[in-house]
């Protein structure tokens, strides 16, 4: 069973659908038309570019190129995490980049080598696609952990200093904020993991089933990817926080 293609008329019908939000926007004076159009436009361009890239990556399937693309993705994700936190790029890009690089490469290679047993560990179909899925989640975790940690410890500076005055080492003094921020960064994924399969069909499964996989196979992949994503996320979060604290004075 092959996935039916979306042809020209289908694409037009897809865009026509946007008339509904635009009509509602006009009727209710939501003043969202510009945002809606801009975000849809960005999405179309970005995905189109990604489609072209992936088309070629999968066609050529060069290990060096796949790794290069992987590094570009990790760098872009680090950039995004820093921008969202309004942190200094110069100070933070190395720890965040390194944290995601270690966590995501570990997770994707583990997945490829020991869970689905592909022969070519760096083949685009698995390496690039799976690492993309893992990366997005690790980035979300890093955004939360750094935001919570740096916001709260500077808000509660006197408490931190008091702990230092009691003789705490830097790590002992920071412990409450380290724990709080890591907990906060993992809570969303723990919550979504617990409800998975109750309401919605996860995106990856949907895709695989549309592509013709049996539900059982799609589900096994889904289970594996959820665990791999979670593990990569906790490693990224912990490493990013600790690397960012490396030799930083308070």
């Amino acid at each position: 069973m092959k996935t039916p293609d979306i042809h020209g008329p289908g694409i037009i019908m897809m865009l026509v659908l946007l008339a509904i939000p635009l009509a509602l926007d006009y009727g209710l004076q939501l003043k969202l038309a510009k945002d809606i159009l801009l975000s849809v436009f960005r999405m179309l361009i970005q995905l189109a570019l990604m489609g072209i890239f992936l088309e070629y990556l999968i066609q050529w399937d060069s290990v060096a190129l796949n790794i290069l693309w992987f590094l570009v993705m990790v760098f872009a994700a680090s950039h995004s995490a820093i921008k969202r936190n309004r942190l200094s790029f110069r100070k933070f890009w190395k720890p965040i980049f390194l944290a995601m690089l270690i966590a995501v490469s570990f997770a994707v290679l583990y997945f490829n080598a020991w869970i689905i047993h592909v022969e070519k560990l760096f083949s685009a179909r698995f390496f690039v696609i799976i690492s993309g899925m893992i990366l997005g989640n690790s980035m979300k975790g890093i955004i939360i952990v750094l935001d919570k940690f740096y916001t709260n410890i500077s808000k509660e500076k006197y408490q931190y200093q008091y702990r230092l005055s009691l003789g705490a080492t830097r790590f002992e003094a920071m412990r409450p904020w380290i724990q709080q921020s890591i907990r906060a960064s993992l809570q969303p994924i723990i919550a979504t993991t617990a409800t998975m399969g109750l309401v919605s069909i996860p995106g990856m499964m949907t895709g695989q089933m549309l592509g013709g996989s049996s539900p059982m196979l799609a589900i096994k992949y889904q289970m594996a990817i959820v665990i791999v994503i979670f593990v990569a996320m906790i490693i990224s979060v912990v490493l990013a926080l600790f690397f960012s604290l490396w030799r930083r004075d308070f």
Partner: protein
Amino acid sequence: MALIQFKNVTKRFDRKVIFNQLSFDINAGDFVLFQGPSGMGKTTLFQLILGFEAVDAGEIHFEGQLLHPKLLPGLRKKIAYVPQIIDWGQGKVIDIIEEFMSFQANIHLTHWRKLLAELMTRFELEAGLLEKDFSMLSGGEKQRMAIIQALLLERKIFLLDEPTAALDTPMKQKVIQYFSERTDATLLVISHDPDWQQIPNIKINLLNQ
């Protein structure tokens, strides 16, 4: 050799000058009361000694050595500090104290539970208070717990920042009485309360005002 020495220390926040060319010596065993108008930044004095703030000009020496980031962990282990703003975070009082006493620097203090009970009796705090959440304590209770915590560390240098501001007169007298008997210690007190002047031999430092 002076224990703590300020040499022409200048400290500014933005453009506001807190200290201008401040100099003084504190010897081991001294009792010093720092006075000065409120809002002038007396708290900054202790922040400078503990290394939480850096000087803009001048030098601070501790035990004859110029204050340096590498020196700070060792220095902090010799000082018991009672801050003006007492924030211990969340949790039961006893759990917080247990954590403080579990820091590597304090792990050698094995008899603190007995001392804690004695000090709580001395400063009229009920044992049941230890089971309360820290945020539920009154200002006076927090202040006494902070003083007790400082004493549990069994250190010889005390930095007390407005330690009696939230206490009623009889309790204030008890605290002052306690410290006046600690002739083994060095005492630096920031307080605008004239009762601290009762301590014999206490030196008053007006911080160049």
